């Protein structure tokens, strides 16, 4: 009997020790590297974190293993690569060369079509969550408005970027623009939507940005010291809307908004111009990501392609040059010319190491604060652009005098010899555009400008090397002005049709 008792004792011991698992919550587990969606929009302080996730998008890699796109910087590089003002000295290690030759954006399976598309739609999905849920969060109304305003501004900006790349240009002489744009997703959903017309998209972009401006008016970020300029202010939202007006040919609004947006904003002085445009404390930067060392992306960052001193194979072998025609058309007194090497004998072209390729016209505009990591603060909007938008929009309305004055305010900070322009009409517009090309070189504008103004690509009589550049001209009617829609979208969303 004693034996059986001890058996039963042992059995119970075994069971109690090992059936501990049978508690009801044994199988209820939660991650430590993520938080439940249900907790995100409970309070405004959590919602701020969701908004910061969007800010972080601007400079984070979408997926590991692809070295061209750290956030928005890859899109910016693409927009210069596809223009005529940026010259690749060499094929380098191959990155962006297919973009430069307008083939990568026509490959529906390629990274250069899918990365921008995925980038903007992921950003939109995150802003949609905020816009949809923020009203239910606990917290002061002003904070909710502030968060929502930024989310709306981001969404408007993102759709504007998308429609410019993936659809035919907005033709203000031919309204309404019924050509297919991109799917217009405004709520959190996984249902695939068809491509909305370009006209409709612009309506929504305007609505989002207009609402954003009214929500952001008077709101200021005071509680952060390091990154206030990563947050979108009312004037940045106005600046974005001014860009939109420019692409819509609405010169009046463009001039008005750009003028309002630049109120109280500073321009760089000559010394600051030469500081490498990579520090968020630059007084001219209005919208900028402050990138910490820990958040930098070694070889996919802007600074690993567009600077002169970052230790990357791409830069060592393929320094980015300005086209000679643009460079040569400015006087020596213009400080901005010092952004580029006047000859390959210049002392600084031999820096930082003699094993870097050194050539005339190579750019010194952007400097990596840290040669070893690719770190740098990335600017998406600065004051000079607002002056240029205002000047261009005024000139295109025929308000030459005002345009000359705005242009003077900008250029005189770059060139002390500069006098108020005596150009007018077409010549004045041309002068403004040349300044825009020089001022914003490498910052992601040129291809978008060509497209919005319905200009062909013309790389002839410039310094493009035929062993690197395989195309020199693209007429305005060419289908290559539209990126292909990524195949992954069409595969999962049969309502979307491909660009021809």
């Amino acid at each position: 009997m004693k034996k059986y008792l001890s058996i039963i004792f042992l059995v119970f011991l075994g069971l109690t020790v090992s059936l501990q698992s049978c508690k009801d919550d044994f199988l209820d587990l939660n991650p430590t590297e993520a938080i439940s969606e249900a907790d995100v929009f409970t309070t405004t302080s959590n919602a701020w974190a969701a908004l910061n996730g969007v800010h972080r998008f601007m400079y984070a890699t979408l997926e590991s293993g692809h070295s061209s796109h750290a956030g928005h910087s890859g899109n910016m590089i693409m927009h210069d690569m596809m223009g005529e003002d940026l010259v690749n000295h060499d094929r380098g290690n191959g990155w962006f060369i297919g973009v430069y030759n307008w083939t990568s954006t026509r490959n529906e399976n390629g990274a250069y079509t899918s990365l921008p598309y995925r980038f903007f739609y992921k950003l939109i999905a995150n802003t949609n969550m905020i816009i949809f849920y923020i009203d239910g969060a606990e917290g002061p109304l002003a904070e909710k408005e502030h968060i929502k305003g930024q989310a709306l501004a981001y969404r408007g900006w993102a759709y504007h970027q998308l429609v410019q790349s993936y659809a035919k240009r907005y033709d203000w002489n031919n309204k309404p623009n019924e050509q297919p744009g991109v799917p217009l997703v405004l709520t959190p959903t996984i249902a695939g939507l068809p491509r909305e017309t370009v006209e409709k998209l612009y309506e929504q972009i305007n609505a989002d940005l207009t609402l954003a401006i009214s929500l952001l008016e008077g709101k200021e970020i005071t509680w952060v010291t390091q990154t206030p300029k990563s947050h979108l202010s009312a004037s940045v939202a106005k600046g974005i809307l001014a860009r939109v007006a420019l692409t819509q040919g609405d010169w009046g609004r463009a001039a008005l908004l750009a003028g309002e947006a630049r109120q109280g904003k500073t321009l760089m002085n000559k010394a600051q111009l030469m500081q490498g445009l990579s520090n968020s404390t630059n007084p001219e930067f209005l919208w900028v990501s402050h990138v910490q060392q820990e958040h930098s992306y070694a070889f996919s960052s802007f600074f690993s392609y567009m600077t002169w001193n970052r230790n990357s194979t791409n830069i060592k072998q393929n320094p980015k040059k300005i086209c000679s025609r643009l460079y040569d058309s400015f006087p020596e007194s213009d400080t901005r010319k010092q952004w580029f090497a006047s000859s390959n004998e210049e002392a600084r072209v031999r820096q930082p190491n003699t094993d870097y390729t050194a050539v005339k016209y190579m750019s010194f505009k952007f400097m990596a604060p840290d040669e070893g990591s690719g770190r740098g603060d990335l600017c998406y909007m600065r004051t000079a652009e607002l002056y240029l938008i205002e000047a261009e929009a005024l000139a295109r309305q025929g308000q030459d005098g005002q345009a000359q004055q705005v242009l003077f305010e900008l250029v005189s900070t770059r060139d002390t010899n500069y006098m108020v322009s005596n150009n007018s009409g077409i010549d004045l517009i041309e002068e403004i555009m040349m300044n825009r090309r020089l001022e914003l070189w490498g910052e992601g504008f040129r291809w978008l400008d060509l497209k919005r103004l319905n200009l062909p690509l013309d790389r002839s009589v410039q310094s493009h090397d035929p062993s690197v550049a395989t195309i020199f001209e693209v007429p305005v009617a060419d289908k290559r002005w539209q990126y292909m829609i990524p195949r992954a979208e069409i595969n999962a969303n049969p309502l979307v049709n491909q660009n021809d």
Partner: protein
Amino acid sequence: MKKIYLLLFFISLISISFLKAQSLQITGVVTSSEDGFSLPGVSVFVKGTTIGTATDIDGRYSLNVPQTASTLVFSFIGMESQEVAILGRSVINIKLGSDAMALEEVVVIAYGTAKKGTYTGAVSSVSAQKIESRSIGNIARAIEGQAAGVQVTSGSGQPGSGQEIRIRGYGSINASSAPLYVVDGVPYTLDISNLNPNDIESISVLKDASATALYGNKAANGVIIVTTKKGNKNRSQFQVRVSQGYSTRGLPEYDRVKSEDWVRLNWEAYVNQMHYSQGIPLEDAKLYASGIHPNQGSRAGLFTGGPSGTGLLEFNPFDVARNDLLLGDGSVNQYASLIYSPEDLDWQKALMQTGSRNEYNILYSGGTAKSDYFASLGYLNENGYLIKTDFERLSGRLNVNTQATSWFRTGVNISANVSMSQTARDQSTSSFVNPFFFTRNIGPIYPIYAQTPITGEYILDDNGNKIYDLGNMLNLGLPFRPSGAYSGRHVVAETMFNEGDFRRNVLSSRTFGEIKFLNDFTFTVNASMDVSAYSDKSYDNAIVGDGAPAGRASRTSTQTTSVNFNQLLNYARSFGEHSFEALLGHESYDFTYDYFYGSKQGVVVDGNYELINFTTINSLNSYQRKYRNEGYFTRLNYGFDEKYFVSGSYRLDGSSRFFKEERWGSFWSLGLGWRLDKEYFMQIPQVNMMMFRASYGQVGNDGLTSYYPWQALYRLNRNNANEPGFDQSTLPAYDLTWESNNSFNIGLDFGIFQRFRGNLEWFHRVSDNLLFDVPLPVSSGISSIDKNIGAMYNQGFEMRVAADVFDKTAVKWTVDMNVTTVKNRITKMPFGEDDEIIEGTKKLKEGRSVYDYWLRQWYGVDPADGLSLYYAQNTDVSREDIRLIGTDTLTFLMANAKYAYSGSAIPNLVGGITNIVSYKDFELTVLLTYQLGGKVYDGIYRSLMNYENWGSAMHADLSMAWKQPGDNTDVPRLDPTMTTDNNAISSRWLIDGSYLNLRSVNLTYNVPKDFSKKLNVGNAKLYATAENLFLISKRKGMNIQQSFAGTTSNAYIQSRIVTVGLNVSF
């Protein structure tokens, strides 16, 4: 509640009162009928029960048997089993004769063992003997070619690495298709390379549901049960095993052209580019390319002009001036000779060494009447043939079991090991630090060391040492390498200067307590804990490559802890002709994964790559992931008259991966067995054994990579500078539940003519409710969501036949071969009939397999202008790209090429053939593995045929490229401008995947007994063994078995290992 009922059931079972048992002791000696030697290790069982023991070193046994017992069964691998009636005797001595049929072996199955002739499931096993004779560091390598139904990859040449295994096809599309490893009764989630192959007693591969269903939740892709060795009672043994060997590369390189031919092909490419794409007259183009056109100007030639002034190829490898180098026909000036020696240009050789392999093991075991023990110590040190790759493992194991009281048995099995390894950076197929990528693709004129142009003298540093030519040493007066030759990168230097190694400390323990009561009941509690601490250090040097100029280091540290408990209640009893076994069990499993990663840059002093020696943090993170499951299960086996067998099982499983309401899944199986040979009508001498088996059952799969797939989450680590941030990462999937795997199996085991034995099986395995990673519209912002949607089946035949070709002569020869076929079909896609998912070279669609190629359809080369032609998608003849040849409408544009299915990567047949030939004291074992059919998409070959960037290597087949109108060839015009279209991913790169591999050869000499006795040792064995001796396939260099998907990539090619060894036991 469920749990409480189960508990009550256990208790009620235990409290059933029963007659007091009476037992009787039987002892005896078992000897060999051939030579009269005693036979250790023979298993002695009471027929129809699990009561049994094994003979000691002198062949003695002692067994307590119940009074009801009537017959003892003696069995031993390789011997004919005998059944002996007890007839009241207390001493039973018997002689066993060798039996080539050997079908009565005991196999390890889920939660127990079974005799093969009574078991209804499909199992293949690999014995210790077969593992011992191989020089493998990872037991996953012991299975290739040995078991029907199993397909493997070639595995990496990295020392310590294993092979990927698929059992009976490809079970899932997005969830795991890998089998479950069970080590000593417990699921093993640590790296299988932790196990010392010398400790392994047997490996069983469980293939059908009848065999696997009891592992319900994890067994969907089959189970590999690994059992470690145990001591034998009254038989102490001490063994020393030593082996030494070397390793070399196991597959040759692709055929690539050498320097002068390469220059000529470059010239041809450049002439074609100028002539065909830029409209320059042919004669002019030739002169321009040679750099000798009267109007050359700044136009680039191969060795002159261009952006840098040094031409497209930049380096001049010859001892004449650039302008005098090339003649107008592309040939090199006859007075020119190469300034580099073959070694200067052999990047592969510069990274290779003769690898070594040293292994030492001490094993001892034994036991008393009540306890047994097994202990081992092992040390393995393997250096790969690639420099700075190695694997070192120190391992120890102790397995002690004791019969504490007449009714209580317990034991522990503890193993600990430390593995250290330097690893190759071959994870990314096209990364510059990947030695195989870089050395394969750099053009054959670029030297490893800096050498003065024209003279070829080495440029030396201040200490008189050679300098690596990094391909960008303008400061030494050397040119940049062109982009196709990776200027600024240098894989030899980077491999020498970088560091990458890991250390893994593992403690693995098992314990059990087993209570026998009421004669027929056994209650067992098993507990296990496996802990693995892994630390990976990596350093990117400050001189060249990704880490330059600051130098950076990272540390990945992970800890894996898995704890498993199970409780098993067994009941086994025979009544007359009936034998009955029941099992009830409960199991819980808790897995924790702790991850830490830190990376810093800015090296302080050289030679130390701990993070403390760096200045700035690049990244710093940690997290913990957990997974748990819990199951309740039962199995009932019934046998009648040793002829008819029925086995059924049921298991209820819960997984933490699924939402509360969906997490429980139930799985079951039913198996039938029929021993035909025991029927009176089959009592014919030609039939030694024949058993028919059939089974059907269902098992589950929750093997998603995500630990929390049902939850809607925002991921952390998305801070905006110092402001806290997170972003959307996954959507909710509340209805996500188990993928089920329903398999049907029929099998026939046979032994005939005293000479042939084996089995035939047919299986049909349906994967339903597939855990599908369903792609979402990109515009939704989320790339995919997991859903249970879709279905697929795998179906096939397996056959194993072993034959004793000669068994009564002095020379004995046994052939053991197996063949497997698998047919894989997707029967349901997430969005119905028309739904398709294109992934790389494959397209998933209903009616197709998971590995069916979907590629542009290549037609051939147009003899008129040497362009690649594809079947056209848009056949509008007014298009400029359309060409008509015969009745075919073709295009030279990749963008207009038509896609179509182009066969499959799945082979028609795979298998292995083992030959064992013995003569006197020699034994030769030869293992061949083979595959028939199945296509390989050879992306590596394509990269060598696709000349896009100046400076990269070329395959020898490019010399067959189209040269002039009228040429009939299948290699298009060599023309970098057209290479995207000419060499697009297409059906052109498919090649037959059939191969024959001499996988392993072993020659053993058993030192004769009388001689070994003089040396005072019991047994001694000398052997020589070789792995991967050769492979015959369609294309030299191609690694056919690299992946199940049939694609090739730049990875550590398998190694050829030759060793000699000595095993001595005392």
